[in-house]
């Protein structure tokens, strides 16, 4: 710059400001990890029918609330005191919204623990398989969303949206199998009802993970979803039972 | 063992404190003495003038008669200075008529159109000229006008030129100063309203500077009314009433000069009377003008 001091190198800003932004980020990531753990443990508890494990998840609910509230306070204080603009403003408002979605993810893990019944379930193999795949896919999505948030990685964030389609597809498959089983005679209907809910929970968790990614991209670049993703045309789909192929597990 | 130390401490502080007070009072006294020293000449002049001229000034006809001739007897005439008062008023008025417009215009040029180097030249020249001895002003006018324009050789014209040579630099300097005191914000405000520069200068800036300009003009007039040297070889002096602008004339400083050196006591007395009169006139004009200028300032918004 013609020998003049590069203005970007000379940080004239009070250190507190930068620390506050970093703190907001840290809180969001901390809450995300907490919610992620609730999700993993909630699913495991339901899947293996472990009531004790389910209880621990249920007890973590208050901490989730506290993290959410503290985050809200910190973000509002930052907005009022620092009157941020541009990137800092987007970060603050983006993080506020992100924590809402992280809260949802934690809550959905909580819901999974809530419907845990004793002992592993007796659903058909193909259903179990589908749910397993939903689980791994969703886990990866949430993990990537949290990484994108914590490390400012828009590339990881953009990756997520593809995976969402996969989850939708698996969700539909799960519903079809369950419908088939419900029409059949020898089924563990209680367990099937649980599986139906859980499949939906996975879909919701994936959706919230996408929202986290969306807001992360907004905070970092200012782009809104409509600027980089084509609009999905949704239509109601007709639910038909899946073809037979699954068997109850032998025990 | 704190008692002795405390006492010693107290004395020490007392000394320092007392010394400071003593010093402060000493300076105050010294200032008072210098004021007295400065005022003493002025007071003694006034006193002398009163003592020696007081008896003469209040005679009837002092201001309406011509100066007396030389006279050695004891009952000589000691009136009057009529033509000299008349002459002073005329020549000073003429000089003011030249100096005020020229001086104010030059000052405006120097101050408002400063960018051109001429402005700075005017300012500098005026500064230098205020220090020129008044007799040289008279000599200059003599050397140029009296010698080359015989029709006005010794006249009110050349007399007023000589006084102008003294007044103009004073007016230029004080007016320039008064203009400088007007904040630049005023000029900018006027220009930004779409008022042309000359209108802004004359009708806003100059008006704002008016008290200062008036004070400067007053100063110049008082200085000019008391000068004898420049009139010595221009107006020349006379003992008779006004004969015409192109003729010689009388003036109070000239009368004082000539009559003070006179061997005739009656004329010397008249000189003292004239001194007292001139002094009083200057004093009164001074006081009245300053009052009016003060009123002007107040009316203009207490600037």
């Amino acid at each position: 710059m013609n020998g003049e001091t590069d203005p970007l190198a000379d940080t004239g800003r009070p250190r507190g400001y930068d620390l506050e932004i970093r703190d907001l980020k840290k809180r969001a990531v901390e809450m995300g990890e907490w919610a992620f753990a609730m999700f993993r443990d909630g699913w495991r508890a339901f899947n293996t029918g472990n009531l004790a494990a389910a209880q621990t998840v249920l007890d973590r609910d208050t901490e989730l609330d506290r993290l959410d509230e503290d985050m809200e306070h910190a973000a509002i204080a930052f907005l009022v005191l620092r009157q941020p603009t541009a990137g800092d403003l987007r970060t603050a408002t983006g993080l506020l919204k992100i924590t809402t979605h992280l809260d949802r993810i934690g809550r959905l893990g909580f819901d999974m623990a809530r419907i845990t019944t004793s002992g592993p379930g007796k659903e058909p193999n193909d259903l179990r398989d589908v749910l397993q795949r939903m689980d791994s896919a969703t886990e990866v999505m949430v993990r990537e969303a949290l990484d994108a948030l914590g490390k400012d990685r828009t590339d990881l964030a953009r990756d997520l949206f593809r995976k969402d389609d996969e989850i939708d597809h698996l969700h539909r498959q799960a519903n079809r199998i369950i419908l088939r089983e419900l029409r059949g005679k020898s089924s563990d209907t209680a367990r099937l009802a649980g599986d139906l809910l859980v499949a939906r929970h996975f879909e919701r968790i994936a959706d919230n993970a996408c929202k986290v990614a969306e807001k992360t991209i907004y905070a970092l670049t200012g782009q809104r979803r409509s600027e980089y993703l084509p609009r999905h045309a949704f239509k109601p789909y007709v639910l038909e039972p899946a073809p037979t192929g699954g068997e109850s597990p032998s025990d | 063992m704190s008692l002795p130390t405390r006492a010693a401490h107290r004395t020490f502080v007392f000394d320092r404190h007392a010394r400071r007070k003593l010093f402060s009072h000493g300076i105050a006294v010294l200032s008072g003495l210098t004021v007295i020293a400065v005022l003493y000449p002025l007071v003694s002049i006034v006193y002398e003038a009163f003592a020696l001229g007081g008896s003469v000034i209040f005679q009837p006809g002092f201001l309406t008669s011509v100066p007396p001739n030389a006279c050695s007897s004891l009952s000589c005439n000691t009136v009057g200075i009529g033509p000299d008062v008349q002459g002073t008023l005329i020549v000073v008025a003429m000089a003011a008529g030249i100096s005020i417009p020229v001086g104010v215009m030059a000052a405006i040029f120097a101050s408002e159109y400063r960018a051109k180097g001429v402005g700075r030249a005017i300012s500098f020249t005026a500064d230098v000229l205020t220090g020129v001895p008044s007799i040289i002003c008279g000599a200059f006018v003599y050397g140029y006008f009296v010698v080359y324009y015989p029709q006005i050789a010794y006249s009110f014209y050349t007399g007023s030129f000589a006084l102008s040579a003294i007044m103009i630099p004073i007016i230029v300097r004080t007016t320039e100063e008064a203009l400088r005191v007007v904040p630049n914000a005023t000029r900018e405000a006027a220009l930004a309203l779409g008022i042309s520069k000359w209108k802004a200068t004359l009708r806003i800036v100059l008006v704002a500077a008016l008290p200062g300009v008036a004070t400067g003009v007053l100063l110049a007039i008082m200085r000019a009314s008391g000068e004898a040297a420049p009139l010595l070889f221009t107006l020349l002096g006379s003992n008779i009433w006004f004969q015409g602008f192109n003729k010689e004339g009388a003036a109070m400083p000239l009368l004082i000069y000539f009559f003070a050196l006179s061997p005739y006591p009656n004329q010397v007395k008249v000189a003292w009377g004239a001194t007292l009169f001139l002094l009083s006139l200057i004093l009164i004009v001074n006081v009245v003008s300053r009052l009016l200028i003060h009123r002007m300032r107040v009316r203009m918004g207490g600037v």
Partner: protein
Amino acid sequence: MNPIKLRTEHLTAFYGEKPAISEVKLDFPERAVSAIIGPSGCGKSTLIRCLNRMHETVARARVEGQVLLDNEDIYQLDPVRVRRRIGMVFQKPNPFVTMSIYNNVSAALRFNGRPSREETDRTVVRSLQQAALWDEVKDRVDAPAVSLSGGQQQRLCIARALAAEPEVLLMDEPCSALDPIATAKIEELVGKLKDEYTVVIVTHNMQQAARVADYTAFMYLGKLIEFGPTEELFERPKDTLTEAYITGRFG
């Protein structure tokens, strides 16, 4: 965006040999408020003073380029006429101290022609109303201008500028010498002025620019860095330098 009222082309201004602003190209839309922000020494005051030809009144000042009012280059016109069409309000309130309130407001009229007493009265009342000062001074219009408070004096200067019926009003940091309440009054006033006038305001207070201006220009070291709708500039600035400035990293 409204049609462009005032624009600059390759505007460069010098003090002696040094350019204070260089190659500035700006378009100010009519009946809108445009703000110019930037750190000290960025040239924003110089720029605004070029817009009504006040810059050249300073010794050794020089301008290159064009400033077009309704597509006419003001540097080819009579400067006195230009300044009647483009008015200015300064940083420190500068009423004519020797004049009354009435005479201050009517100055532009009285010095440029001799309108009737009724016409002058009407203009004075209207201008004082537009400047939101009429109610406070209506029973003492003949009082000296210096008897008003700082905020009132500045509104008086605004009324005085408006009385000349300009098309554009330039304001050079009009609130920096005022307290917050006076500032708020003037900001509100500016919001109303844009119904009739094109306003260009220089401010060092970014929140003020955000509150008051439809468009904002950011200048740095004599160059125009960015110009756009205020919302965009403050939420998603295009230039990293702009972002660094408005988030307080320098300046």
